[in-house]
């Protein structure tokens, strides 16, 4: 049972994982979650995470926000009554009771645009989140488990991709694929972005590789693939979820950047394209809400992902949690 240890236990291996990336983007240091024993398999781990999220205020806030966006994306028609693309209204109206956010320079209802714009963003976020995590997992686990030359080669590929500046690359690719659809954007962002989290997953897989229960499986004669799929991957659940969130966040930021530059799909209204049109129309003077609101949505969605991720960090490394009520004990100490 949980026995009280002496006051060490500094967040495990500390920052041997991915430092330096925006913390919400590289949240789980290889040590943080590992300190708690590496991982518990599949369902138990998910339940543990759910409990951890509800108990941590930051995570709950983030999760609630995310849920809100999912709902909006699922049933936009219920919330906004206008067709976002219909250019029927008078241009550049201010906010009013019939147009909560006013209208754009093309006569579209801004509120509908924001609401309907949620779905493409979430699609991209989840698409990239899933895709990049899967690739990162395959590469990371393969590199850790196969070792040797395979490890070296995969590592080099990962590192090179990590170093090449991504936005310029995306811009160039995007310009060649002028105005391609959402699916293409998902593919492109996934293909260039998986390397961020691949390194963390590899680090954890490496540490898990030498655990006893895996040795037992090997001695039992199980095949490598079995061991990888059935034993290793489920125990990495928490890190996989974190990787998903990281990649989703990165997708939101990069896709909206590309859309803002005009490289997105012109037929799809999303927050990034709204900002593109707003800049084109020089909305600073006439419709500041056009600039403010879509950006706020991006920040909100990004914050949702980031807060949950950061909370994971705190959960895995209790030292990071806010220090509270030590003053009481300190007072007692001093009074003697």
């Amino acid at each position: 049972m949980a026995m009280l240890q002496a006051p060490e236990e500094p967040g495990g291996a500390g920052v041997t994982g991915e430092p330096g990336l925006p913390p919400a983007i590289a949240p789980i240091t290889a040590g943080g979650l590992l300190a708690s024993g590496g991982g518990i398999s599949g369902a138990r781990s998910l339940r543990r995470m759910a409990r951890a999220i509800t108990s941590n205020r930051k995570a709950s806030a983030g999760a609630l926000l995310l849920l809100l966006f999912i709902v909006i994306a699922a049933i936009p028609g219920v919330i906004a009554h206008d067709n976002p693309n219909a250019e029927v209204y008078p241009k550049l109206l201010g906010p009013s009771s019939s147009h909560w956010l006013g209208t754009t320079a093309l006569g579209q209802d801004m509120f509908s645009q924001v609401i309907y714009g949620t779905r493409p963003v979430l699609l991209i976020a989840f698409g990239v989140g899933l895709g990049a995590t899967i690739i990162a997992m395959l590469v990371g686990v393969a590199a850790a488990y196969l070792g040797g030359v395979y490890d070296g080669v995969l590592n080099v590929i990962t590192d090179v991709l990590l170093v090449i500046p991504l936005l310029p690359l995306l811009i160039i690719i995007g310009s060649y694929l002028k105005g391609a659809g959402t699916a293409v954007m998902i593919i492109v962002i996934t293909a260039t972005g998986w390397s961020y989290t691949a390194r963390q997953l590899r680090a954890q897989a490496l540490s898990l590789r030498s655990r006893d229960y895996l040795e037992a499986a090997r001695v039992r004669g199980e095949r490598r693939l079995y061991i990888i799929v059935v034993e290793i991957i489920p125990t990495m659940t928490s890190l996989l979820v974190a990787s998903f969130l990281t990649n989703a966040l990165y997708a939101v930021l990069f896709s909206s950047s590309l859309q803002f530059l005009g490289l997105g799909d012109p037929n799809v209204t999303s927050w990034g394209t709204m900002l593109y049109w707003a800049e084109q129309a020089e909305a600073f003077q006439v419709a500041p809400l056009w600039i403010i609101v879509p950006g706020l949505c991006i920040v909100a969605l990004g914050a949702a992902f980031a807060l949950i991720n950061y909370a994971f960090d705190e959960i895995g490394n209790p030292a990071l949690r806010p220090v509270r009520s030590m003053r009481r004990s300190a007072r007692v100490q001093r009074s003697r």
Partner: protein
Amino acid sequence: MSSVPGSESAGPAEGSGRLASRAGSPAAASFPPAGAAPVPDAAGQPVLAVRDLTVEYVMERGTVTAVDHVSFDLGPGEFLGVVGESGCGKSTLLFAIAQLLAPPAGIAGGSVAFRGTNMVGLTDKELAAIRWKDLSVVMQSAMNALNPVKSIGAQFSDVMRAHGVRSKQEIAARSAEVLRMVGIDPVHLGSYPHQLSGGMRQRSMIAMAMLFTPDLIIMDEPTSALDVVAQRSLMVQVKELQQQFGFAVIFVTHDMSLVRHFSERLLVMYAGQVAEVGETRRMFASPLHPYTAGLMEAFPSIRGPRVPLTGIPGSPPDLAQPQAGCWFAPRCTRVMPRCRTSQPDLYQVDGTLARCFLHQEEAPGGGRP
């Protein structure tokens, strides 16, 4: 060599006059239970006097008492072993004595008098005068306890300069001297921790602890990370230094065989409390507390008769769930009904203190809360 395999204790008590005489003078029943303490030497007072030391961890799910009203005395030059299972609080006790606790842990009560001065409640600045000059610490893993980006010499020099030694020659000379004391070639002053072997790192930690020949050196499982051969060699080195310089040692370990050979007095901890404390030889010969007895049985002598290995059934208690009765009751082989309902005090038997109702009748007037 003072340690002979099989002997009860490598007692250096026959050595220099600074070291304590044998413990065991019959004690008064009054508080503090001086029975387990040696008679102080001519200097007049014990080096360390711990009274009712209590350490709490303040966590989200509640407060846990990791060290519960621990009291003991330590005479000059004495070697006190502190043993117990993992998580019994022995390391916490050590850090509490050295005033090295960090949130969420904190001293919630009690006093730690070093040469008469209570260290509890002093600020780091006030403690700086005592630290290292009179009281130094050796930690479990030298790899973790040494700054990885500074050379050994630089770390020695940091300490000396922090305590007023300015001259480079003095620093260099003393650094070389302490390294030689532990059998390391002073050329390693320029080495980084990762360049030394495990045993050498541990020795250099001891050398560092000796820089000002303190009165008390606290050691937290310094041998756990070493192999058996290195262990013995390190312990012998420590005993030799102790004989030569006469400092007291508090030695925390979970290895009973080490304390048996090297310590004069022994303190057994369980669930943050003192379970038994007294003279080592006596405790090994006839343990009073059932837990101590269990520990002894788990480490049979290599020369004694062959006995089946017995452990202690059950597992250490979760300190977050307070108990009404004795902490050890669930695992005790000699448990009585009252053990489950009330907590025993420390009772004295012939100079040894034991926290067990079995010995309550023998102590005149009982012990203390």
